[in-house]
């Protein structure tokens, strides 16, 4: 049933989600965010996603390029358009909306 749902919502099943998670050190928020992201992806994007975690404390110069302000920030590089989701991703529904996995409702 889940599989059917996936097919309905994502028009092009071969599409790969390239996701970058920006964090600043191993904070509670970044650990939570990563765990939440992993879970959401496993449930909704199984087999068609890539996650790259970027620690800004180690690579501060990368903050400018992707316009990072808040952390954690999840950036959807692909598919276009670029999307930014900030916060620890604890609100699954909003993450799915932010990633365009489920359509925005009223």
């Amino acid at each position, binding site marked *: 049933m889940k599989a059917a749902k996936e097919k309905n919502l994502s028009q092009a099943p071969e599409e790969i989600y390239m996701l970058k998670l920006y964090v600043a050190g191993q904070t509670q928020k970044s650990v939570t965010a990563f765990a939440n992201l992993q879970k959401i992806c496993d449930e909704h994007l199984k087999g068609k996603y890539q996650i790259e975690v970027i620690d800004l404390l180690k690579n501060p110069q990368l903050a400018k390029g992707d316009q990072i*302000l808040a952390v954690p920030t999840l950036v959807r590089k692909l598919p276009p358009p670029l999307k930014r989701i900030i916060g620890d991703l*604890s609100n699954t529904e909003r993450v799915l909306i932010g990633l365009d996995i489920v359509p925005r409702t009223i």
Partner: protein
Amino acid sequence: MRQEGKTILEQGTRGGMRKNQHSSKAGALNTTLVKKNKKGLNLKDLVLQKCPTGIQGVDEITYGGLPQGRPTLICGSAGSGKTLFAMEFIVHGALEYNEPGVFVSFEENSEELTKNFASLGIDLQDAVQKKMLVLDHVYIEPSEIEETGEYDLDGLFVRLGYSIDSIGAKRVALDTLEALFSGLGNENILRAELRRLFRWLKTKGVTAVITAERGDESLTRFGLEEYVADCVILLDHRVNEQIATRRMKIIKYRGSRHGTNEYPFLISQQGISVLPITSLGLDYPVTSERISTGIKTLDAMFDNKGYYRGSAVMISGTAGTGKSIMAAHFVNHACSKGKHCLYFAFEEPAGQIIRNMGTIGVDLEQWVEKGLLNFSANRPSFQGLEMHLVSMHDSINEFEPDVVVIDPISNLVQTGTMFDTKAMLTRLMDYLKMQHITVLMTNLTLNKETNDNSEIGISSLTDTIIRLDNVEENLRQNRFLTIVKSRGMNHSNLVNNFVITDKGVQLKTGGGKP
């Protein structure tokens, strides 16, 4: 001033950045500090250090600049010059004070900023290449951002910290931080993070300028003044009777005295220019040197010597009595002695004055060509009264004249109220006297009955007043000249008849002591 004496206070709070330079001294200073304080000595070393803005006039009204190592809030409505203030602070720091700076823009991107500031003659890209400036455009598009739980602004901190460290920045500008509020929804998080940001900036030891949009009832729309408590400067842009005036006011400046007035300022090709106030006061030095009136027979009426150098002279009279001619003689003679003259014309363009004076044998053009005479012709209604004052100040600073002519001063009254005009003229007179600049003003009176010429009520500011009259007699106009007053000299009290010929003004009865 900036270089000497990093304070003990600073070393306590700012730690790291200065440590290399002063670590050996710090211990010694701390131990001697208590003793010295008891004696009341060296207290000034404890006083807050200032970071000069390099913006004309701002360092005067803040007595040295912004609080070093602390954030300053610049608030004002749209178009009041906030961004310019912030950028000038950074650019002057980088180019004149060897203090690299980071400019974080939340509104305009680097290209836009570069273009805007190129028009002010500031080459931002050059400073960027010299590693004296970092431009960082923080782009926030609310529609692209989804909020999903807890977050903080460490990204901004990391980014800013990286920029600061990459060039060893001493100055930071954030323009306009409030964009965060429209971009991010969680105000609680934002407020906590802003508080943390300002503390963090202090520990970084950078002098920061933060701009904010003015709110309806509070200083800033989002109450940023709560967090930046050290120094708050308000920029204002008011339109009164269709004439706009910009004003600057220091709302607060913790740990420092500051001017409390509203100071008019101008945004010109050189950027922001605030009217300096150092000139205000009555303690200027005086001289007993004399300067010729330019008319021999008139000199004779003043002890054979003329006006005092650095005094204020007013020539008053109804229309067509020869006021400008008197001024032209004065200028002509001063220039022939190699003095620099600045002529503010509020009635006629420069060319017309030169042409007209040519007909009475006064050749002003030669002095213009030699660079001794400079005309500044403006319509009085072209800008507000205070703006006139600021721009006159700027011209005077630039040209450094020995003699200034204002022709006529009465026209300036049109642009302001009596009170404003008087306040402005007081400032101008004080400023000129400080610089030992002799000023000659012409004043158009409406009829001869108002004989004290004090329509503007500035007679008390002038040292010498000459009145010119036309009297009709036997079908011809007779011209008369009277010295109404001339402080500190023995002057003629005769009413002298004079004529204007093609060789200039000739006093008929001659002067001399009565």
